[in-house]
């Protein structure tokens, strides 16, 4: 029984981690030919962060530098680069901080693993606490606590609850 619950926890954990860590990248269509529209540029810029400002996505950053970076994306698109290549180019130039979420590798695993782990641990603690609370009073309940409300009189219940506040 214990063994099974452990397997269950491991499966849930793997599921949660995968959910959190799914590569959060959607590939924008790259313009293979012709003029590149602003929307194509923004689709990529949206998933990059301004390399010099704090927490400003590249597509909405108003600085001169960001304008030039968007122009760079346009050029690369015109040259036939894919969205993934352009992103990689920015990462190579300015580091991981230009990505909206840390890439899933090395130390960064922690950001994806820790919250689900803690939530899971919290869930287990909560479940145990609820179970512990519940079991010992099963007998006592009937004797001490008020009888279960099988009265249909809704207003009486409301009035009772209001009185108890």
């Amino acid at each position, binding site marked *: 029984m214990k063994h099974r619950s452990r397997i269950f926890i491991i499966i849930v954990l793997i599921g949660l981690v995968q959910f959190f860590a799914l590569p959060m990248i959607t590939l924008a269509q790259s313009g293979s030919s012709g003029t590149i529209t602003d929307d194509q540029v923004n689709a990529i810029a949206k998933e990059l962060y301004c390399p010099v400002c704090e927490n400003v996505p590249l597509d*909405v950053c108003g600085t001169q530098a960001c304008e030039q970076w968007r122009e760079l994306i346009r050029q690369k698109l015109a040259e036939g680069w894919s969205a993934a290549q352009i992103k990689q180019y920015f990462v190579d130039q300015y580091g991981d901080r230009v990505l*909206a979420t840390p890439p899933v590798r090395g130390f960064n695993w922690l*950001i994806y693993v820790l919250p689900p782990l803690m939530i899971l641990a919290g869930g287990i603690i909560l479940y145990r606490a609820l179970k512990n609370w519940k079991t010992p009073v099963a007998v006592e309940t009937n004797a001490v606590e008020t009888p279960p409300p099988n009265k249909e009189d809704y207003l009486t219940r409301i009035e009772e609850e209001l009185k108890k506040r």
Partner: protein
Amino acid sequence: MVANIGYGALCITLVIAVYGIVAAVYGSRRKLPYWVDSARNAMLLTFPLLTLSVISLVVLLVNGNFEVDYVASVTSKSMPLYLKITALWGGQAGSLLFWTWAMSAFASAVTLRNWDRDREFLPWVIVVSLVTITFFLGLIIFVENPFARLWILGETVILKSMFPPVGSVLFLQPDGRGLNPLLRHPGMIIHPPMLYLGFVAFVIPYAFAIAALITGRTDDRWIRITRRWTLVAWLFLSLGLLLGGRWAYDVLGWGGYWGWDPVEISALMPWLTGTAFLHSVMIQEKRGMLKHWNMLLIILTYDLVIFGTFLTRSGILSSVHAFAQSAIGPLFFGFIGLTFVVSLSLLLHRWNELKSEAHMTSLLSREALFLLNNFLFLGILVVCFWGVIFPLLSELITGQKVTVGPPFYQRATAPLFAGLLFLMGIAPLAAWRHSTVQTLGKALWKPAIVSLLGPLLAAIFGVHDWAALLGFWLVAFVASVTIYEYGRAVIARAHSRSEPIWRAFWELAGRNRRRYGGYIIHLGVVLMGLGIIGMEMFQTETQGTIGQGQEIKLDQYTIRYDSIAIFDTSDGRNVARAVVSIYKDGQYVGEVHPRRDYYYESQQPMTIPGVRSTMEDDLYVLLVDWKPVSSSMATFKIYHNPLVNWLWLGGLVFIFGTLVAAWPDREGQPERVKKKKENLVRSNA
């Protein structure tokens, strides 16, 4: 002179605050009432002294005393009077002073109001409040002094100091740098004080909790005393968050209201634990359970408040270097760590006295569902806290800077928020103590069926995304349960007492404001949920460069660029204002004026959207760029934001509900007043 008065008042307040702490502890331990009274007077004295200090700073700001560094950094001659006054919280040093002043005001109000009733708690409430005030005063006086002046030594060396360094003369600047243009918005003027008032007011329930732990009065008395304070704190914090969102939407020019920025998250975190606390204290009041948990929640809330205050203005988590270089960072972290450890030790000391008086009898009872609600709120907190802290850790350990942006938070918190909505739907119908699948099912099936109309309608309108349909169902579910539960009680009361429906509605709400105020808050959340679903799932955008008379299409909308005017204003801005006509399905529906303001002083541009707003959607047009008039080309970015106004409407309903819940009861009057009234009525009869 004025700066000296302000600074002097601060120093005297610090001495008095320290004295107050010592007197309260001594008086309380030795049971010497006059020492406690003296501590109370010290507490009360901090308020006029801090008021004097705040007034001094406002005078300096309004007069434009630019030799004071803070004044020069947040004001300039051309700013209007109201902005000069509100520049009080426009920078870190002023914000800290404002925070401390508000803290002193709240703590003084508590001591004045509750003095006779809660004499055993109050010495310790004074201690906790004064310790908090002392910490902030220390920061203001020794690290972030808003009254410090600039001095020039020799030809070039400029020093910042309160008193003149040897051989230096006052450095008089002709004008200040002015308030950050982003902060010159009505939303931003009210948003920070609301947030700070929310932060500060949460210190009160924490102070009572600590007082309960120290005195050993660990029953639910501290919760009953602070119930309204907690609601007031929550009201201000919610208002602060909402105004912040509105400000972002109006000013930041990215078409959204929430960007999961560390500063935003730092204000959300105490709100999360505060909301969990508001729910779980009800379990302690009704069932005498979860006493440890409530203590832990309010301790967490307090430390998150301090953490939030620190993050809001410092921008310190942006890098390890910024953190290491600032003196304020380690001090804040030290204080947070110390208060957390001391509070936890007190909690552990009283652990056995805080045992539950009752047991959980059903996993579907309201208390069990409330506990689950707490679990989800804390889950969101874990995600937020870890997301904020992680970039700093990453840089510290690997040397690599990373960004934790919206995709992380959205993915991680969306299921938790959905879970909360679901609980919001079932918990109001679950009974305290006993609830089984049968009883709950019996109560739920009618509203559950009605709620299916939500996704059905959405599907008819062409929504096929499963997540959106689930969202619409959850929203409809909470709405129908809430209305059903309230409606049922109203009708039952109207029948049994032969009252008109409206009267029954009113009387019932008056009987238990917290309960029915809570339902109104839930309805507010439902409306906000609609707006959030609309924005998160159906927002579309496009950008294009067009000439005058040309058009851009987005969904059913077409915009036409008509003209542009470029001019200077008297307050130091260069404004480029475009006129754009909007057509919906080919029909002209109005014009908007997206703007780009360039502030000469701070050399900062600001993009103000032109928005056509209806309950169905917003068309949000930004002027991104424009070419000289000769070529008459301009670049526009257009966002189509469906349902976004339900978010703001929901916010208003939410605040109204909180006001209903927090409004003072008639029963709240002291017993003797009630008795007097009763006697009066009797004698008249």
